[in-house]
């Protein structure tokens, strides 16, 4: 009886190691495929590189914890962006006062992304990207969610699944968000 129990434990242990490795590989693949998009999304909710990195890490941790429960009832990207949006909301709520103070201090500061290998060619695009990011950060959260997801090339249907709203609602928010974004970008010129 004891040897059977011990065999079962050993069998469980043996099967747990490959399962763990598969989970790690899946996590690495998801992050490699979607890391830049998640980082951009995190950047739209934070005002500095270090805060963006913190939020990105929080998102990664939530993904790591939720991944074993993912049963494929939606696409991996939907799953990932749901978690990311949820973490971002939690982050915003948690840091509300601190960010409001910081925002006032850095209202006129423009933080540029890290330099690329080809600085001359990329500089103009980077500055435009930074200007766009600054404008997106000023959008109300409900519009910002839809705008950033759209800019990642995600369809209305998938955005509706991520946010738990109707597709027509996605359209309405996107329209308003775009209108506001256009105005904000014009104001920055």
């Amino acid at each position, binding site marked *: 009886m004891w040897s059977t129990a011990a065999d079962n434990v050993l069998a469980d242990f043996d099967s747990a190691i490959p399962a763990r490795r598969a989970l790690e590989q899946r996590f690495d693949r998801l992050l490699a495929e979607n890391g830049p998009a998640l980082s*951009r999304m995190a950047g739209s909710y934070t005002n500095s590189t270090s805060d963006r990195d913190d939020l990105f890490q929080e998102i990664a941790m939530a993904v790591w914890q939720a991944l074993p429960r993912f049963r494929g009832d939606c696409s991996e990207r939907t799953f990932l962006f749901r978690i990311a949006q949820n973490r971002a909301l939690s982050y915003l709520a948690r840091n509300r006062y601190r960010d409001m103070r910081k925002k006032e201090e850095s209202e006129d500061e423009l933080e540029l*992304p890290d330099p690329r290998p080809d600085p001359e060619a*990329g500089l103009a695009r980077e500055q435009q990207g930074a200007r766009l990011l600054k404008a997106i950060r000023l959008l109300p959260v409900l519009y910002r969610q839809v705008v950033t997801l759209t800019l990642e090339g995600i369809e209305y249907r998938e955005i509706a699944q991520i946010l738990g709203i109707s597709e027509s609602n996605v359209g309405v928010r996107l329209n308003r968000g775009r209108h506001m974004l256009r105005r904000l970008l014009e104001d920055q010129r």
Partner: protein
Amino acid sequence: MSVDAELDVWRREWQSETAVPAAGLRGKVQRQSRIMRMTLMAEVLVTVVMGGGTTAWAVRSRQPDTMVLAAAVWVFLAAAWTFAIVSRRDCWSPAALNTSAFLDLSIRRCRSAISATTFGTILYFCELLFCLTWVFRHLSQREPIRLEAFLSSGPVAVVWLCTLTYVGFVLWYRRKKRAELSYLLALDGRSEHALPNT
């Protein structure tokens, strides 16, 4: 510029940022997961050490006051765990809920955290009152001691200091949670005029 062309330009500008923070992210994430598990284990450990320790002491000494202490510690621990389980009952959920459902969950968690501070403070002062009374009685049985002298003694001064720190922390935490709750409620209200943009 047409609407779609405008969106394409924004999309290109937006996606030009391709930096991904932090090398060895999985290691950091696994470390954080371990810390969270250890925190939970610490809660269980405190229960076992406090409850088990006082029970063992009561069994060994067979004195009525140590038995009272052990019983009271278990009552306090049971109250704390019951409240923790009841208040967390509707707050556990997978991280991958859609954002709308997650918002509801966050609001429940926030309200639960605020009520936990009220309960925690009441429990803390009950425990404080009981422990100070118990220690005073215990010391008085050995040699007579004045209440004022006891309350201003060195070890009890440390307790007052801890109490002050605890009250300060609770006040700060409640303010933080209230701010969080009002933000989440504003988001949940979907009011176009009251949308927070931070």
